[in-house]
């Protein structure tokens, strides 16, 4: 038996022994805005299911919430091949994810690359175990696509930094324990005046205000900093060297979005919805025009899935995410928007409900999903910025002079 196969049987029996019975076959619940919040962990987590807590503790102790991170930082220390085996076996057991975490998806990889040893030892193990929930302080009211236009001031006060300013679109800032944040440490330069810093969201002077979206949910906040004191040891990388870290982290963000794609809109499959609401004629969806557009969309979706898989296989020989992930982010957003629009169209007037009587939960979810999906081509870099990145970094076209 190869090492990998022996690892596989080890994993199998570990899952068998450690996955709480109540979670067996629970499947990968969608990590949507509507999902169970406890999956995000953190200090303020309210466990709705004690078995979910147990599952996180056990996975965290093995380091398998971050399978490829080094063991000295609490990670699983697995090779890419072993991590894939782990993923396969968790999938086979239909185990629910133990943890959803911006710490694992975004912050951890850049800490591994840019942080000093003390910072890694301090933060990475807690991320792995889901003890600290992180949020991302990037966008500001005047700095969206032009992220480097940010203005949040971080002033050196000798023994600490003092931070003043505000962020917007901070995901779940009202539930987060810590923030990784871009701040301005030099007002005379643009990109070279930005630093990357970590701090505690319970620090005096931090306030959050949830933003209500058109979909009715509030996954994002406005976040205000007034004279927030931050220890100087919390700066990651070089002073004024934060932009490189920021870009790197954005790549991980896009890669993360890409590999999962966008969800939302409920679990109703488009072709099933069309069959149920429009009906079949001679085995074909009765509205031929809609049928052709559903087929075109489904084909695009399959082409997208094949591409994600192909890029992942090709990336194995490379290090880190490639600029091609920008096309994936762009395509994923468009696909999800197309899908949710078609789902609502297939449902006809039943897809146009907001709430209350007369509409099923799946119908309400479809419309909410459509509305939420409009943000997919804005958050984490707009589609326009993605296309700019592709045309410049991948295709080598130059800036307009």
């Amino acid at each position, binding site marked *: 038996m190869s090492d990998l196969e022996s690892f596989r049987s080890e994993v199998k029996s570990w899952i068998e022994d450690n996955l709480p019975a109540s979670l067996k076959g629970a499947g990968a619940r969608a990590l949507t805005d509507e999902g169970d919040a406890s999956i995000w962990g953190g200090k303020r987590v309210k466990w709705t299911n004690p078995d979910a807590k147990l599952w996180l503790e056990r996975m965290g102790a093995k380091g398998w919430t971050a399978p490829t991170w080094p063991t000295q930082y609490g990670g699983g220390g697995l090779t890419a091949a072993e991590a894939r085996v782990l993923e396969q076996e968790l999938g086979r057991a239909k185990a629910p994810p133990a943890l959803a975490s911006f710490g694992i998806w975004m912050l951890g990889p850049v800490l591994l690359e840019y942080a000093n040893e003390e910072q890694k030892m301090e933060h990475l193990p807690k991320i792995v175990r889901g003890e600290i929930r992180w949020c991302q302080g990037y966008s500001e009211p005047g700095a969206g*696509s032009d992220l480097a236009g940010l203005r949040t001031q971080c002033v050196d006060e000798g023994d600490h930094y003092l931070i003043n300013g505000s962020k917007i679109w901070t995901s779940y800032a009202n539930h987060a324990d810590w923030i990784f944040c871009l701040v301005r440490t030099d007002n005379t330069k643009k990109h070279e005046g930005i630093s990357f810093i970590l701090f505690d969201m319970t620090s005096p002077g931090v306030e959050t205000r949830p933003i209500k979206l058109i979909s009715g949910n509030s996954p994002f906040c406005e976040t205000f900093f007034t004279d927030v004191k931050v220890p100087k040891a919390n700066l990651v990388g070089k002073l004024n060297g934060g932009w490189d870290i920021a870009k790197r982290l954005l790549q991980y963000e896009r890669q993360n979005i890409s590999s999962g794609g966008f969800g939302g809109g409920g679990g109703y499959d488009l072709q099933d919805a069309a069959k149920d609401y429009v009906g079949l004629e001679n085995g074909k969806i009765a509205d031929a025009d809609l049928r052709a557009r559903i087929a075109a969309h489904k084909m695009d979706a399959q082409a997208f899935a094949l591409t994600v898989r192909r890029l992942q296989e090709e990336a194995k020989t490379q290090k880190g995410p490639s600029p091609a992930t920008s096309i994936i982010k762009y395509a994923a957003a468009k696909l999800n928007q197309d899908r949710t629009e078609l789902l609502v169209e297939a449902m006809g*007037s039943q897809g146009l409900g907001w709430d209350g009587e007369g*509409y099923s939960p799946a119908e309400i979810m479809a419309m909410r999903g459509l*509305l939420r999906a409009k943000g997919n*081509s804005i958050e984490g870099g707009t589609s326009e910025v993605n296309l700019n990145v592709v045309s410049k970094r991948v295709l080598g076209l130059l800036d307009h002079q």
Partner: protein
Amino acid sequence: MAVFTEEQTMLRDAAKAWVAEKSPVTTFRKLRDGGNADGFDRAVWREMAQMGWAGILVPEEFGGTELGCLTLGIVLEETGRTLTASPLLSTALIAASALVLGGTDAQKQQWLPGIADGSAVAAFAVDEGAHHHPEKLAMTKALTGTKTFVAEGGAADLVIVATKDGLFLVRGDAKGLARRRLSSVDSRGLARLTFDRAEGESLSASLDQVLDRARAGLAAEMLGTAAQAFEITLDYLKTRTQFGQLIGTFQSLQHRAAKMYTELELTRSCVEAALIAIDKGANDVPQLVALAKAKASETLHLVSNEMIQMHGGIGMTDAHDAGLYLKRARVAEAMYGGASYHRDRYASLMGY
């Protein structure tokens, strides 16, 4: 826009002024947030009637001005710009048309004066399932069954009901009629009506004729909604700065804006042509109406999506108006048949 008469130009200017003063989008937002059950404000509707708009299709003998559908379309376009919630379409256009085209003298006498003065609100009940298929209605003159997606169905004093046996006029408080309000995404007054051997009177207007007027009127409203959504977005392109530039200086956004403008111009031609054809009683009304409703649906779809995208994050917030336009867009697109339905209808009318 078409070359208007002086009267039409004055009416448009009056509508513009009234809408700006009395019914900006903030008014609709308040109505939504206040949870108004009717989906519109009866006091506002009476004010609109006092402007003369409720009687634009009503003959003078019944208190109206009989100015025609193009004229009413001009007002619908203006009220559509600010998402004004009112029974203007359902009552002043659809019900008035049904009565003028197919009402007995007694029916006209009973209902038209109330329509013209804003005291009577009407609804038009067509769809029986999730999709618009007026050619496959199940309900008969026995007036038993369910109608859904009925605009102003909860508040209506009279309901024009489409059946396979023709149109019927049913009082809002008729025996055998039960109504359930729906909470639709556009926060307008939609309802589901259940009929159980309801009392009603036959109307001799043809369903197709009334339906085509409904579609053309809705298309006019949608043209206004799309035009305003575009103008708000264009303003944003001229004021929002990123990368040290007004975002409206980015060529890819410029080209997308120019394409939207092109679509809006094309849509305006179709909507006005349909309304003019209706007023003239032309032969190609069905074809022009299918064109107008399909084009209006496609254009409003495009513009409402671009409005959000070009506004970026701020457009995703409930506090911004972009979401209100998007939500109204999707409902209006589907009502009385979406673009897909009308493409199919157009092709069939043209014989292929």
